[in-house]
């Protein structure tokens, strides 16, 4: 198999309501990624786009609309989507363009503009549920994730205080991210006193809704040599989608994330993730999800993630820095762009270019992961320097 390199990354500011159109956001991220790689658009042979539901901006065939902003004019162009998992899945989507030998270069772009859905994008999520069995109940995402969070807490006897530590850490980490929407210093008490939305989910447990875009440049090893001495490699990709009947699942553990991780680890020849992975960017649209996903990624045992968090292991200076970027909670959560932001973070950390966010354990291997649909999909990308 051809080894796939990452040689550039770009990102817009994540914000609640961007004045730019989706095309313009995509352009900005793409331009920055190309500049950072030292490339021009003409050097790009293919484009892999990711953007989650069309319902956010009422754009049918959204990728077609975004195509010129994403640099796909007269280029082979595909769009992938697996709901909230789309962003990190773009690592997989771009990977097969290069690993197949069909292309030597591929620009990967994740874009999301949620603010067009007025007054709040949560309304769009009503349309993700089963037409017959669920929609009549009027569920929303906060509602079903409250069920999952509750199940996770109950199963392992986890305290809300321990989960809140994730929110404190990620909002704090985001203070060092120039693109961040919600970098702030908060305390566990702030989280516990914030408004309850659907018990046990409170306002500061949840990532914001955001607009933004992020991009990475992938290429073959031969091409990478022309542009940099310091490429980062995508050594493993994995994804798994479980049944749509989410009510049949025991929600305490994301088995589909574990399966996706196993697929990626096998490809990357990782047999002991706890030892071989130096840092992680698990998907954290809710604070408990970071913990849930650390367990799914097999970075710790089931129910152990809160303990690691409490002990400071997941801090930037800990043994297993987790969401050093600030994650979806802190940097913001423009769905498909969030996952690519996590891929960007792996790239910058592995190149030693993360500035004030740089982790100090001399990282060699990082893993990014996203999750979505009806608590149903896990997508995983492993990078090495």
């Amino acid at each position, binding site marked *: *198999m*051809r080894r796939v390199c990452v040689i550039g990354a770009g990102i817009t500011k994540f914000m609640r309501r961007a004045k730019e*159109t989706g095309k313009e956001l995509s352009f900005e991220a793409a331009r920055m990624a190309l500049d950072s790689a030292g490339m021009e658009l003409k050097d790009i042979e293919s484009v892999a786009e990711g953007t989650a*539901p*069309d*319902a956010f901006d*009422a*754009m*049918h*065939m*959204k*990728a*077609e*609309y*975004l*195509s*010129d902003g994403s640099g*796909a*004019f*007269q*280029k*082979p*162009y*595909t*769009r*992938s*989507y*697996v*709901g909230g998992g789309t962003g990190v899945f773009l690592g*997989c989507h771009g*990977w*097969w363009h290069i*690993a*197949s*030998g*069909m292309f030597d270069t591929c620009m990967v772009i994740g874009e999301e503009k949620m603010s067009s859905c007025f007054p709040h994008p949560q309304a*769009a*999520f009503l*349309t*993700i549920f089963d*037409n017959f069995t669920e929609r009549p109940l009027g569920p929303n995402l906060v509602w079903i994730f409250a069920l999952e969070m509750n199940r996770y807490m109950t199963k392992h006897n986890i305290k809300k205080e321990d989960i809140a530590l994730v929110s404190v850490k990620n909002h704090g980490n985001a203070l060092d991210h120039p693109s961040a929407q919600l970098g702030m210093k908060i305390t566990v008490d702030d989280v516990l006193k914030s408004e309850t939305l659907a018990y046990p989910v409170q306002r500061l447990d949840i990532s914001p809704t955001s607009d933004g875009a992020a991009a990475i440049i992938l290429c073959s090893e031969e091409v990478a040599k022309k542009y940099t001495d310091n490429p980062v490699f995508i*050594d493993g990709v*994995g*994804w*798994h*989608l*479980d*049944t*749509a*009947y989410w009510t049949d699942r025991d929600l305490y553990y994301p*088995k*589909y994330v574990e399966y*996706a991780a196993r*697929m990626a680890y096998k*490809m990357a*020849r990782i047999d002991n993730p706890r030892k071989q992975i130096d840092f992680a960017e698990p998907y954290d649209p809710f604070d408990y999800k970071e913990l849930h996903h650390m367990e799914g990624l097999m970075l710790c045992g089931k129910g152990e993630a809160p303990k690691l968090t409490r002990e400071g292991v997941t801090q930037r200076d800990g043994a297993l820095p987790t969401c050093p970027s600030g994650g979806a909670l802190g940097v913001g959560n423009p769905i498909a762009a969030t996952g690519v932001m996590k891929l960007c973070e792996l790239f910058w950390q592995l190149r030693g270019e993360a500035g004030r966010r740089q982790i100090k354990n001399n990282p060699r291997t990082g893993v990014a992961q996203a999750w979505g*649909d*009806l608590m*149903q*999909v896990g997508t995983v990308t492993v990078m090495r320097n």
Partner: protein
Amino acid sequence: MGVVPVKKVAIVGVGQTSLKPFSPEVSYKELMYEAAVRAYEDVGINPRKDVDSFIGVSEDFWEGTSIFDEYLPDQIGGALRPVCTIGNEGLHGIATAAMQVKTGQFRVVAVESHSKVSEVVSPLSVMSLAFDPILNRPLNFNPHMIAGLEMSRFLYDSGVSREECAKVVAKNRASALKNPNAAYPAKIEVAEIMKSEDSFPPMKKLEMSAPADGALVFVVASEKRAKELTDNPIWIDGIGWMNDTPTLENRDWANARYAALAMKMASKQAGYGAQDVDLFEIDDTYAYKEIQHAGALGICDPLDYQDFEADGWAPVNPSGGSLGCGHLLDATGLLRLAEAVYQLRGTAGPRQIKDANRALVQSWRGVPTTSGAVALLSNDNGGDAR
């Protein structure tokens, strides 16, 4: 990393439902299930064990469900397996499967797409939402008007007559009479079409393909696995896909540049072009599009289309095309591909073309896109001929 790269990729299984203007007797899940069962039975595999990756091709608004990929795995045997959705045309899904197989990490990949358009309350409203929200949508036009305008420009530029477009309708709907799966077979005289009502002048209503319900599933495999699974693999010799500009204001209205560019990409891989194949299954969403696409693909000059047809060295749309079979939204390209597979296998029944060893399949995503894909295929004899 020790994985052997895969050079050749084959289609080893195909399953489809029949196509119908309405299908109230089944849900979209049942349609998908039927196509999937037929495809897996066609090649004799168990999707729970033998398929390494599943790809769906769909768009949320046509489904009436956001992040529709949620509802993909169960009906196609993909629960708790690698499954993803591609938001493009069916042939893009095949291209994605080909790329996955070529990485060497996946031996067998399944591709699904379907249309349940009969349940869409207002297809025109859905299509309208594909237009630029700032520059185009406020003008509040019927989306098919764009096709009428394009046809007008194409006729002006190429010199093709309105009657020649009408002939495409008569031909394709007549071809569909031999296709038991087709939704709109008919014997219509060209004069009758010419006398029929104008919808989006110069386009007649009869020159617009009508929507239909249906589902298709394909099984794609690496060379090694294909030879184990079947005696009759259909090789994907080349596959290309391309986007031109999404803006209406500065595109080329006369020529289908996306089709020409996708063709260039596919023929570079295959090492042969439009002149070397035995049949064509190309996009005819609107009748003029078949002629325009024939020009872009290098089949013949649009002006010579009737001579080329009369000459008959390689038939275009023996299946009946979208005009005869019905338009299947983003599954349309897979329907064209299915006919090519039947023809190259020699199992097309009354439609069988003699000595069909190579085929060209092309798709277009419809108004207002400039997204197209091309696949060049051969059977084992087509390979020997090279």
